[in-house]
């Protein structure tokens, strides 16, 4: 924008002094502004259209076909709702992956948020060296979806990994966590929870926004720490909690990398880590059933959208915006 508009903060106000000149001036400027706007937007716009919007619409189309990647697009057959029907009626592994993903998100997301909030509360003090701790706790989430981290995790939690050596110090015999179908998914949950740094930083920022007068007033009224937390901190923080909840839920549903690495791309042992996205990937790229995989992706998109809508519609009952505009 800086290229075309005068960087003069007073322009808007001054317009009232000379309305004619202003109208003519801004009209012309707007014209150039619009063009420049699109020019500067174009890398993103081309990206959005070419890399996101068009492929998305294409995948919507493909979800009604039997596309298998190798056959040219011009030769695919329209199969109507067959893919969607198959998903709901005759694909046990689809239902299985839905269950795996739901249990992952239902357990990992709340625990991750609780850990993030807890640590943020601890680190919201003026201790010496608190900055270092903030950095250290934030670090794991920087490594987010990294493959290297997942490999480290697998090595830490296999039968002769570091975690079992640690347990052995207390005379506890560990399990082959990542290779045990009863524990593999739990291991992934722990990995997700451990990466609580991103929501933690946002919580920290939110905590800083809570006016100290409120705490002072509360303590004058005789509220203890716990009371203050429940009646001041939580309501004041609710927009941030809401934001983190929505974001982390979406992230939780989309977990892929760790499950892929842990199971060598199979979802094993015995499908215990067959997350929805991993199942989708295997269906599309290993089994070459891209039409069916597209249908799976669209159902997934709708499910996440639905969950988000539910969050937003319940939000007005518990999210408190301090500017008074409840929305």
């Amino acid at each position, binding site marked *: 924008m800086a*290229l*075309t508009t*005068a*960087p*003069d*903060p*007073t*322009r808007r106000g*001054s317009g009232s002094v*000379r309305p004619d*000149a*202003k109208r*003519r*001036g801004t009209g*012309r*400027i707007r014209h*150039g502004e619009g*063009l*420049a706007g699109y*020019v500067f937007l*174009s*890398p993103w716009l*081309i990206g959005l259209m070419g890399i996101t919007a068009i492929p998305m619409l294409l995948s919507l189309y493909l979800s009604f076909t039997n596309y*298998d*990647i*190798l*056959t*040219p697009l011009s030769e695919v057959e329209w199969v109507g709702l067959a893919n969607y029907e198959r998903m709901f009626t*005759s694909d046990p592994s689809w239902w299985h992956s839905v269950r795996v993903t739901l249990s992952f998100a239902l357990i990992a997301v709340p625990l991750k948020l609780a850990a993030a909030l807890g640590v943020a509360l601890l680190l919201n003090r003026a201790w010496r060296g608190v900055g270092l701790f903030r950095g250290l706790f934030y670090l794991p989430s920087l490594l987010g979806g990294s493959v290297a981290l997942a490999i480290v995790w697998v090595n830490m939690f*296999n*039968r002769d990994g570091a975690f079992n050596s640690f347990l052995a110090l207390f005379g506890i015999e560990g399990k*082959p966590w990542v*290779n*045990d*179908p009863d524990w593999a998914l739990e291991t992934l949950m722990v990995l997700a929870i451990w990466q609580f740094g991103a929501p933690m930083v946002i919580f920290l920022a939110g905590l800083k926004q809570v006016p100290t007068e409120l705490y002072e007033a509360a303590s004058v009224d005789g509220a203890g720490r716990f009371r203050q937390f429940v009646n001041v901190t939580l309501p004041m923080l609710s927009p941030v909690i809401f934001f983190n909840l929505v974001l982390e839920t979406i992230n939780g549903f989309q977990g892929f990398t760790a499950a892929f690495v842990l199971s*060598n*791309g*199979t979802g*094993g*042992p*015995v*499908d215990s880590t067959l997350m929805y996205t991993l199942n989708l990937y*295997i269906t599309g*790229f*290993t*089994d*070459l*059933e*891209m039409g069916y995989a597209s249908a799976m992706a669209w159902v997934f998109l709708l499910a996440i959208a639905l969950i988000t809508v539910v969050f937003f519609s319940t939000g007005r009952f518990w999210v408190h915006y301090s500017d008074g505009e409840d929305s």
Partner: protein
Amino acid sequence: MHPATHPTASAPDGRTYRTPQLRRRLLRGLLAAVVALPLVGMAAACGDDAGSDGKTKISIFWWGGDARAQLTEQALDLYTQKNPDVTFEKTWQANQGYFDKLATLTAGGNPPDIFQIDDNFLAEYAARNTTLDLKPYQDSGKLDTTKFPPSLLQYGVVDGKLAGVASGENTQGLVYNKTLLVKNDLPEPTTGMSWEEHIAWAEQVSKKTGVPGTQDPSADYKAFWVWLRQQGKDLYSGTDLGFTAEDVTKWFELWKGARDRGATPTPDVIHEGNATDITKQLVVTGKSATSWVWVNQMPELKKNTTDELGVIAYPGDPSGQWARASMYWSVFRGSKNADIAVDVINFLANDPDAVKLLGTDRGLPSNLDLRRVVSDDTTDEAMKQSIAVETELAESFGESPQVPIKGHSKVRAELTKAAENAQYGRATPAEAAAQFVEACKAAIAS
């Protein structure tokens, strides 16, 4: 900016409107650049086929490690030396993700002229007409297969079309840890032992050494396949399964017995060994005395352990094994340079210098005359060993089965899932077998 001066269009402020033309030019320039960028990209992408100066560029894609890349590149350079008009665009990568990439390239309308493929996917590609039928080239002599073992050649035929040319031959091999056995005064296993004898031997190894005697191969399709052939069955028969749920139950029960006797590792270790990755095979990680692999993997396995390894056929009648194409070269059906691509494949299979360069990296050379030359020349001990064993086994090979059908990769995954269900005790062998057969039927029907 100074608050007192407000710029308007009619009274251009020095800073803002001094150069409207410049601005316009700049905008146009930007716009042009934005529009041109993708075009440049396209032009660069189109540059591959070149050909305007009489030169042809053949794209070729394979999976493998550094060693294979080096050997293959040298062999291709040799081709360019002899045919200066032909150059190569070589792409290679690790096995994991290779077929994703190949499928994506094909979908994008940009597949390589020549690609490496194996029997897990050959039928998938051939059934969808992605591979060029090489029969006409074979008939016209442009592709010389006269020195190939007939059964090896046959193993590249799908629906009557020659979909791929074996770039090497291998067969199933049971690799065992010789050092461990010698140290503990235990007999080495031998080809021709029955499955029961093998399990009894493994039990003895477990008891005496503390290292589980044998990896449980119930999740391994190639072991299951050999066993089926020994029972007079097969993995596939036409477009259907070549076995029944009862066969699978017997197979799973055989190995349940072995686990109960302590002949195998625990389920989680078996699961580790079920990865196809060579470095994770239990015989080299020291978690089992044997692993079920392909004979030509011996040199690679050897690199991952200091112990001495031996290799024999899988248990039971060795005629259950066959001359399997370890991998093939295939040509993309839409290739603009198909004739040259076929000539390159012919060169890689039949040129004495190229074959000598490539050695046994992809398996024993398909050309029998040159196979002899290579085995006489090699100095690599592990390679010598695998050549010797395979040459010996070749005398008892049975007929090649049909190439695995479309849906095979899913069948393999389902076998692993079912076998592991039984191993972890989450299902009885009969339940796991029933699940497996049902899932297979769905996989090959679609």
